[in-house]
């Protein structure tokens, strides 16, 4: 236990050095989805990645998840070179990607089943997790009987059920209405505070990125690259009232400026 702790303190949870990803398009022209990116994420850190669509933020997440191979550079997870998908990552996709023929409980237990973990032990864990997200009474419902927010809660529970070290989220609340989204953000922060997972969350909402993060990674497209890393020095626990504070506004304006400048330069460069 002691050893594990000290290891966590020194080794970054996720480390990208010189990572690039080039896709070949149908026309044969290469697309630089991600260009020479360096990024270090500490254990237990809450990172958000914000940027316009096409800036490579989803590619970044898929590379960290091991769903995509980098064209060059190295990715290290807890110090070890990443060689593919790992049970150390729990992933939440843009839409909940629940299996419609499985009940809420069966969906949550999918990783347990696939990873062949102890069904009884993790069944209890799943039950407890579902209770914390307020879905205790919905365990036997099917996804089509749930609202969008509830489905995304199930997806988050599923990503957490096998107790991974990191939670990777690709615009998890993008499809939700503003009020549900606020609610989900607060719940996510509660879960994070309770579990202290390393979280990487992709979003296109600047407000959301500032509200959640310890550190915001701002990205710009063509080629996809990190423009700036901004440490969000706001107290925790975060509350919705903070959004109206001057400090919060400063961060938002700064990021908007960065994204706007990127868009400007891009428009200028296009013939």
């Amino acid at each position, binding site marked *: 236990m002691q050893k594990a702790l000290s290891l966590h303190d020194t080794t970054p949870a996720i480390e990208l050095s010189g990572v690039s990803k080039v896709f070949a398009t149908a026309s044969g022209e290469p697309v630089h989805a991600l260009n020479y990116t360096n990024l270090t994420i500490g254990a237990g850190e809450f990172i958000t990645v914000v940027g316009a669509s096409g800036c490579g933020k989803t590619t970044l997440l898929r590379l960290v998840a091991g769903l995509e191979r980098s064209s060059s550079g190295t990715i290290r997870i807890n110090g070890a070179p990443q060689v593919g*998908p*790992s049970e150390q990552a729990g992933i939440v996709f843009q839409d909940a990607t629940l299996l419609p023929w499985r009940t809420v409980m069966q969906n949550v237990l999918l990783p347990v089943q*696939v990873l062949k973990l102890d069904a009884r032990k993790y069944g209890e864990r799943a039950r407890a997790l579902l209770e914390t997200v*307020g879905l205790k009474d*919905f365990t036997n419902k099917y996804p089509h009987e749930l609202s969008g927010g509830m489905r995304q809660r199930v997806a988050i529970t599923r990503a957490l059920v096998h107790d991974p070290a990191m939670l990777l989220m690709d615009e998890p609340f993008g499809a939700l209405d503003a009020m549900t989204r606020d609610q989900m953000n607060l*719940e996510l922060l509660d879960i994070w505070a309770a579990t202290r997972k390393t979280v990487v969350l992709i979003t296109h909402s600047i407000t959301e990125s500032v509200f959640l993060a310890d550190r915001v990674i701002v990205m710009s497209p063509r080629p996809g690259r990190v423009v700036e890393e901004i440490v969000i020095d706001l107290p925790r626990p975060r509350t919705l009232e903070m959004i109206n504070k001057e400090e919060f506004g400063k961060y938002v304006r700064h990021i908007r400026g960065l994204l706007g400048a990127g868009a400007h330069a891009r428009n200028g460069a296009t013939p």
Partner: protein
Amino acid sequence: MTVQSESAVGSVSVPSLPAKPSMLARITDKLVSPFFAILLVAYWEFHVRYFEVDALLLPPPSKILVSLWHGLASGLFLEHLGITIYRALSGFLIAMFMGIALGALISQFKFIEKTVYPWVVALQTVPKIAIAPLILVWCGYGSLSKIVTATLVAFFPILVNTIIGLRSCEQGKLDLMRSLKAGRWLTFRMVQLPNALPFIFAGLSVAVVFSILGALVGEFVGSKDGIGFLILDANYQLNIPRVFALLIMLAAYGITCHVLLRYAHRKLVFWNDQHNVTSA
């Protein structure tokens, strides 16, 4: 953690309907289809009798019913219907297992797709009915040639729908399985196959009708029993009411299969009741 707002959305209470349709409106709605059918048959009867249409061209419904009754009472129809159903159903079941299995193999293994699939596509463009005489030569005069014809005709809709269904799986679901390091078989069994079920059922409901067609064609080409044989026989004797009576029995079997399949579909693919995939 508070979730009241969301939970309220989840457990939808029954909304007050804008205007409840009256009892009368609902009954009329239910009765409109049967009423129209009765009207049509009545007009048919009337037209044939009033304009003295030759019974060889179009017999009145009453005569068809009498012929149907005689055929059923003598046991002749049921005996031959049983034979035809045996052939059609055997063909359908063989086509189902082969179609789903081959579809799965083609969708899973590039090698099989490259080697087998072009032949499958080529064979599909051949009108199966045109090779029915050939099958008679190969498989003989008995039931086998009819079962083979039925299998051939029913096979392709199942195969094609299985392939489409297995390929239509969302990337997100596959990524989910990949992120958990699930193997090919597990991904197939847990995600792709259930995901393809609506498509497979669409293929099956087409195939079940095709299988009757296949068996019938086989019987037309050469047979000494079955509904196809009876139809040809009645036709030669210009016993047109009997031809119609036999057609009614085939239709009844087809409708029964269709209803059973739809029931199985609803039970098995309960999650997409509302927007079923339909295919030609």
